[in-house]
């Protein structure tokens, strides 16, 4: 039932906020609903910690046979959702970051309203879509049905596309248009891949409901037709990879991040990309089962490496602060893709850990960036100066967040990069020079930009509203803690998930 709660609460929130999203208390309602979602996921997590993997609705769920509607519904939902070590932490992470972002969005969107950039109608759209977006991501993660996963992913695009263009400026419209077209076309490829997957699965599992259920597919993955699956994987990779932001399919990403409201940039970067990568990895597991590791792994490593290198060199050219961190997301998604591509227990572990810490760090950065650009009245980095004078905590948040994302210990990003690099060194030593060059270039680019923004003299004023700093430091504290100590159950999940991805 926790699953129903997890999915139901944000859906309810979307409905409520669609009606009341323009009221003055809507931001609080938004945060409350997000908190409720987060609370539901903690219940779910507790359940998983206690009972392990679960599928919902499973055989134990029996409905009254006389009620035809219920029977039909149960038939429709049977085995449609599942929680395993791979998605449980992502669900918790998504709900958590969703909640903290809602907290951040409270003062942020109020200030935007003060500045006259949004009106109540758009605010209603914003709040409602925010909840809907959370719902689609959770649905995508929890769905056992590969087709529904696709539907949810497309839903995530649809719910955010109007948020990207929320300000209705020419630039935001352009960004949203590109986001929409490129992602929709990309996802269309993914749908074709899903169809091919079904095409192959149907022969083994027979036509009908079970042929798209991941738990079933996973069991028979060795019997699936390799040729079809390799073709399917290409489509899935190109499709979901567009959403992940893999170079050269990444072009929508910096635009959408830079032009949308910052809370949306935070969840896009921190959550949506993860979810898309989750989909790629799920596909990879099936393909590996049919084909052996080298094929999908090689493709993913190639894309990952290309993304890391290209994004790193893009970084140094940026003037817009959000755009720069968007490229940084491309880089980090590249690292994760590379890690999953390498495969093996350590690399997969590292990839999962990197998903976690990157989400937390990147969203924390976007929180500080949002406040900073509001204070400066621009997103142009040359005009943001001396944050540490106007708001010391904000400045420290930005500089620590940047250092964390650049992979400096003791932050957790270093932990995962350490594992990725060391694994790469002895398994794919040819790739290490590229990775290292990219890391150094990224370091020079980002830090060289962040430093003058944070330190030095400024003429900017203090923010009228107190910035939301709890989310920033909560995220950074968790990232710091993960750099030094990983809780055993999290290790357990990562290990099991890594074994699954292997």
């Amino acid at each position, binding site marked *: 039932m926790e699953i129903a709660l997890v999915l139901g609460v944000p859906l309810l929130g979307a409905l409520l906020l669609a009606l009341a999203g323009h009221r003055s208390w809507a931001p609080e309602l938004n945060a409350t609903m997000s908190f409720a979602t987060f609370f539901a996921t903690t219940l779910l997590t507790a359940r998983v910690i206690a009972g392990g993997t679960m599928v919902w609705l499973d055989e134990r769920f029996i409905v009254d046979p006389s009620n035809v509607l219920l029977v039909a519904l149960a038939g429709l939902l049977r085995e449609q959702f599942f929680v395993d070590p791979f998605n449980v932490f992502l669900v918790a992470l998504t709900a958590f970051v969703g909640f903290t972002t809602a907290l951040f969005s409270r003062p942020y969107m109020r200030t935007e309203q003060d500045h006259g950039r949004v009106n109540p109608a758009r605010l209603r759209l914003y709040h409602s879509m925010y909840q809907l977006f959370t719902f689609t991501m959770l649905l995508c993660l929890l769905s056992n049905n590969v087709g529904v996963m696709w539907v949810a992913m497309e839903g995530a695009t649809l719910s955010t596309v109007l948020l990207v263009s929320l300000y209705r400026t020419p630039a935001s419209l352009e960004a949203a248009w590109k986001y929409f077209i*490129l992602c929709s076309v990309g996802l269309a490829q993914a749908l074709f891949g899903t169809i091919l997957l079904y095409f192959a699965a149907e022969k083994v599992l027979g036509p009908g409901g079970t042929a798209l259920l991941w738990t079933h597919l996973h069991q028979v993955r060795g019997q699936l037709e390799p040729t079809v699956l*390799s073709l399917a994987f290409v489509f899935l990779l190109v499709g979901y990879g567009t959403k992940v932001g893999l170079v050269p399919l990444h072009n929508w990403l910096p635009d959408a991040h830079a032009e949308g409201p910052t809370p949306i940039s935070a969840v896009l970067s921190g959550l949506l990309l993860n979810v898309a990568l989750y989909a790629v990895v799920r596909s990879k597991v099936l393909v590996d089962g049919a084909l052996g590791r080298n094929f999908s792994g090689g493709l993913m490593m190639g894309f990952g490496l290309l993304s890391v290198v290209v994004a790193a060199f*893009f970084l*140094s050219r940026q003037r817009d602060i959000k755009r720069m961190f968007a490229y940084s997301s491309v880089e980090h998604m590249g690292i994760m893709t590379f890690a999953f591509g390498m495969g093996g227990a350590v690399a997969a572990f590292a990839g999962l850990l990197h998903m976690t810490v990157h989400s937390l760090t990147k969203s924390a950065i976007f929180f500080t960036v949002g406040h900073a650009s509001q204070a400066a009245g621009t997103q142009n980095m040359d005009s943001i100066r001396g944050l540490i004078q106007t708001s010391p905590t904000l400045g420290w948040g930005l500089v620590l967040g940047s250092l964390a994302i650049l992979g400096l*210990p003791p932050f957790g990003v270093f932990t995962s990069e350490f594992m990725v690099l060391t694994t790469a060194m002895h398994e794919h030593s040819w790739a*290490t020079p590229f990775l290292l060059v990219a890391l150094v270039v990224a*370091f020079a680019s980002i830090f060289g930009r962040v430093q003058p923004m944070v330190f030095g003299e400024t003429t900017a004023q203090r923010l009228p509203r107190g910035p939301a700093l709890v989310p920033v430091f909560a995220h950074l504290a968790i990232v710091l803690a993960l750099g030094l*100590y990983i809780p*055993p159950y999290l290790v357990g999940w990562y290990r099991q998930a890594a074994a699954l991805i292997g």
Partner: protein
Amino acid sequence: MGVLPSPLAGSLLVAAAWLVVAVAGLIPAGNAAFARRFAFPLGAAAGVALAALGLQAVWLPAQTLTLPLGLPDLPFHVRMDPLAGFFLMLLGSVSAGISVYAAGYFREEPSGRLTLISMQYHVFLASMAFVLLADDAYLFMVAWETMALSSYFLVITDHQRPAIRSAGFLYLLIAHLGAIAILLCFGVLHGGRGDYTFDALRAAQLQPAWASVAFLLAFFGFGAKAGMIPLHAWLPEAHPAAPSPVSALMSGIMIKTAIYGMVRVTFDLIGGTSGNIRWEWGMAVLVVGAGTTLFGVLYALVQHDLKRLLAYHSVENIGIILLGLGMAMVFIGFGHPAAGALGLIAALYHTLNHAVFKGLLFLGAGSILHSTGMRNLNDMGGLIRGMPKTAFYFLIGALAISALPPLNGFVSEWLTFQAALQATVLQHGVVRSLLPLFAATLALAGALTAMCFVKVYGIAFLGRAREPAHRSPLPHAGDAGPMERYGMAWLAAGCFVLGLFPTSFLLMLNRVGVSLTGHGLSEDALLGSGWLWLVPTAMGQASYSPVIFFVVIVAVTLLAFLLVRRFYHGRLRFSDPWDCGYPEQTSRMQDTADAFGQPIRHVFGPIYRTDRRLPGPEDTEPRYSLKVEDRHWYWLYLPVARAAEIVSSKIALLQQGRISIYLLYSFITLIALLVFVR
């Protein structure tokens, strides 16, 4: 044995104590009384404890411990062995003096800044302790980068000035580059088996070629931190930018952790007792070391910013340490471990000595800065009258760094010379005749250092203030406060102790050498002649007795004094200096720092990139300006930056803004992959 059950646990406690002090300063937010009164003295006390523990650990077998932190498969491993013990002693003892000094130096900081500085300072200390204690690659890297980060924040304490910000950036960038090379080195050492504990790395059997790669990576990575050329560029920028106690910590201790890393990786992880060290590595180290030594001192000579000058001297001294290490590697590579041990001991002893005297000198520079607000030597003069005590401590530091007997700098250079003179045991003719050449560079550098410190001391402390009293703060400069003086006195005493009683330290270093290479100097020779005598090999070959030397020189000087006093009158008159017949002599006509360096610029002209502006005959306000720049900027750093920029401008063509093109990328990717799949 000691106060605490084991040196390892004790050292962990000390490191934890530093962390506690760091955090404690933050808890009563806004109330900096704790940071002001107690934080630094407590940190100093912890330092003394650490020094004692380290000293004790040198004589004990290695201990290890696993902490319940870190990665799931790789919890934090810590280990205390003689090498770590020695470096912990260095860290503890030198930082104790610096912390005492800092207690005085930071007294007048505004509260907010003070708590921040106190936190970063103690995190910095703790991270250095963890670098030394780490026994697995992960903890090492975490501590290493934490050290870089905390010191970076300390460097940019005065972040309002753009120059300081860019110094901090350059520092962190090169530190990061080095860290990545180190990480790569661990990866190579690992060779794909086992985990990343140092034990596993030690056990890995490497191909000679891979061992060389690992060594080069370590050399590069740690060299970047140590400040060897051509990776030194950050050092003269960052060390002067930091507050002086921090400069002292960075120059005195932090760059020594890089030496520690180099020794740990080369002699322990790669070399071990299995004799994997190759003499070619030693030659590489020697060549770089000689270059670093000469380059450092030559650039120091043309500086006029006192702290920058001291920073270039750190570069030089790292070069000297590298010379010792290189000789050790050459000897070990040729199968002469005893001679190798001498080189290693010389290098390690110089590491300790440099920490002490460079710490002292930076503290002295800090006191000058504190009381006059000046760093530019060209403006200074006559400080000995206002701050005689600081002048006294600074003189000790200056004599020590100039490698003059009987102070400590001389002893380690003496040992390095002795190591070079062991070259006769080598069979390889070319190498044998090259080693003395490296000794020659050392001699040259020593003499140049003396010249440089005559310049520093003569111009800053001696002579007269250049401007009249109402235009210059110099005549009103007061001496350093008591805490500052205690800190300097501690390090100055260190210069004497290390200079006068080297034998006991040598015994200790011999333990370190034996624990690393399995061979050392003969303890009979070391002990046989008693503590008075420093005899590395045999009495007939080489010996030096600093105590006798010191006693005799003091005795004969006093004797001369007393005789003159006794037999001749003590009549003394005071008058104006003799003007040589030029009645218009003013104090502005004294040599400036730039003038003092002029012969060097003349002799070594091609090394510098000089921009000199002479006033023209028609100038109403004649100005002379001189700018000496580091050539490495122009042939190495700027071209690399430009290359990166070119690459990124090419890559930027990918993102043209046209949606059709983006779709085309997607399409081509798809088609290409489909073709590939078939």
